């Protein structure tokens, strides 16, 4: 119910853009070390945090680095020395971090990063798509994707709880759509600082370990005597990912008690209970898809929407239980794996039984707008075709809007 503003039990109403909601959450989490490098559309985050720290509203160190690689490396170092640390980036910046992303995750240190999603060049393009965020999905980061400015704030704040939980100890990436959320103003509810402090105490620097002069002479990352240690390490990481599902659920449950905000943890379902067909989306365009669902319901179609909130850990059970028994599932990807198709469609298709109609739609790349009307047409066509011709199993279908020659 992302378009409805739930009543908050305690807190204040503020108006801000998505990037500033990230900065606000980082401030309220009392982060100790921040480092980030400017890149559109993330830049508002690094600017706002610089300002907040400069004004003394957040007592933290801001490290003005020379690259995104250095940004992640420095907050990684800060986390290794016991600090609560944060970074943010987009697109090319995220890809410049790539090596460090894997090292950070496998070091089992808590970290939070905002990823303001943006297309990759060439050509240069600062507009929204989700391919950048999804390209880190194998690295060991927990990955969430918000759909409103309120959720950007909530997801950033809960990320620290999730990442620092001893059952998890994996870094968390919070995705938000470039411009659509990052630069769009919405009213949001912000909890009181004292409530946040009680819910999110300062990080225990000794968990999982701390690298400090005069401290325990531990060595992180030297060659393993047996490669089996390394393999086991991967298996343990994956186990923690599974454990993270429970931790995410607990975190939102407690956060809900604090703020009155109710989220289903990994996926949210809109008008699903009696749905015979389900659409699947992730991120800000889910709001447009919901409008399409409402219109289709008015036309008599029994259709609902699954919105992916966390793609890692992968919400397999959560999606499976909802797609079982429906007649068709249509997945919208604002991302691609070249030579394969939409990434969500590819991952989810295996959860959809073969006697259920399936279509993967690649759309909205490079910031191309997809309107509620377009969602409605694509979903309606899918349902009508399935009803007329029986099940289809199409993993990849490119939706390119007709520009009539364009300009």
């Amino acid at each position: 119910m992302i378009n409805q503003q739930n009543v908050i039990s305690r807190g204040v109403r503020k108006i801000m853009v998505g990037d500033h909601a990230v900065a606000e959450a980082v401030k309220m989490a009392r982060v100790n070390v921040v480092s980030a490098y400017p890149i559109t559309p993330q830049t508002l985050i690094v600017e706002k945090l610089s300002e907040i720290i400069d004004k003394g509203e957040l007592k933290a160190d801001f490290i003005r680095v020379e690259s995104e690689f250095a940004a992640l490396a420095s907050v990684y170092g800060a986390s290794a020395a016991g600090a609560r640390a944060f970074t943010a980036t987009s697109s090319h910046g995220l890809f410049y971090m790539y090596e460090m992303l894997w090292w950070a995750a496998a070091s089992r240190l808590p970290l939070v990063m905002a990823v303001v999603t943006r297309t990759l060049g060439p050509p240069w393009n600062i507009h929204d798509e989700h391919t950048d965020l999804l390209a880190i999905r194998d690295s060991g980061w927990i990955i969430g994707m918000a759909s409103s400015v309120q959720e950007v704030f909530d997801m950033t704040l809960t990320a620290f709880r999730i990442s620092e939980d001893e059952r998890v100890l994996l870094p968390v990436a919070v995705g938000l759509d470039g411009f659509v959320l990052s630069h769009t103003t919405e009213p949001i509810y912000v909890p009181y600082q004292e409530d946040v402090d009680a819910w999110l105490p300062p990080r225990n620097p000794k968990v999982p370990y701390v690298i400090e002069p005069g401290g325990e002479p531990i060595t992180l990352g030297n060659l393993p005597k047996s490669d089996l240690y390394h393999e086991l390490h991967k298996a343990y990481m994956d186990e923690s990912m599974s454990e993270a599902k429970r931790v995410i659920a607990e975190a939102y449950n407690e956060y809900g008690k604090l703020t009155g905000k109710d989220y289903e943890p990994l996926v949210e379902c809109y008008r699903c209970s009696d749905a015979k067909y389900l659409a699947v989306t992730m991120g800000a365009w889910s709001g447009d898809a919901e409008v399409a669902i409402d219109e289709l319901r008015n036309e008599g179609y029994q259709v609902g929407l699954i919105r992916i909130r966390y793609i890692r850990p992968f919400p397999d059970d959560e999606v499976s239980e909802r797609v079982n028994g429906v007649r068709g599932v249509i997945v919208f990807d604002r991302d691609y794996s070249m030579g394969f198709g939409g990434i969500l469609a590819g991952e989810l298709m295996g959860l959809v039984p073969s006697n259920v109609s399936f279509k993967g739609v690649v759309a909205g790349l490079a910031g191309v707008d997809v309107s509620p009307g377009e969602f409605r047409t694509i979903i309606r066509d899918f349902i009508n075709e399935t009803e007329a011709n029986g099940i289809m199993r199409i993993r990849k279908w490119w939706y390119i809007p007709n520009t009539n020659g364009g300009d």
Partner: protein
Amino acid sequence: MVTMSELHKYGRTKVIMPGTAACPGCPLQIGLRQLIMALDGKLTLIIPAGCSSVIPGVAPYTSFTVPVIHVPFASSPSVASGLVRALRARGIDGHVVVWAGDGATADIGFAALSGAAYRNEDIIYVLADNEAYMNTGIQASGTTPQKAWTTTSPRGKTEGKKNVALIMLMHKIPYVATASIAYPIDFIDKVRKAASIKGFKFIHLHAPCPPGWKFPDDYTVKVARLAVETGVWVLWEYYQGKLTISPPSAPYRDKQRRKPIEEYLRIQGRFAHLSKDDINEIKAMVDQEWDTLMNLVNALNYHA
């Protein structure tokens, strides 16, 4: 100045435990021992990819007696920046030391190094320079000397050696020095002086590598000493805006007192292919480096 008796005392202390994976005659092992002695073991090491990723030995064991974090190749100055900021915020003193090779420093990690230096992060950065990518099997780096053989410069390197220490001096950081594993008293004193200063400290440590330079395992110190005695490697220190030639190198300001460069070149297989002309060219390059350095000494000290 550190005394010989103090060195002997440390010699009996195991700052590095048995079981390292270093090659016989490894200069990094010598340099690391001196470094840890200098700081009385009160340090944290940040080690990027390179020979020193292997030297501590295999997990779950380590031969090092200090906390160590191994990090990706280009990342050590950045990791150290974040680490030291977090430590200071938590009220923890103690030295954060990057121990990096020439590839990590002069090449792949150079942007991160420059960034951390210009921010004047409170780090001691030691470039342990064995003059090539030795861990991957002897490939030319930005600090491999001109004409030296490596597997990627089979007929001798065509480019010169980056003077990393002078580049760092131009970052206007509080302390820059060069050192050699053959001069422990000089190196230890420099580390200790660096440790007494807040901000970014850079020490370029010359570290001859037996398999990489192709000389016998027991010649490591001899080759390092000859580099200084022939004037190929100059020990100097930059502190409080003043550049000084360090005592072991001071006599060699006078060219006549330097040993013939051939003595240094001829015991290394990597220079075996050199012609007489090549050697003369190297001599001219060494003279030019000295000229640059002495001009800089005069220029900087004029203002200091």
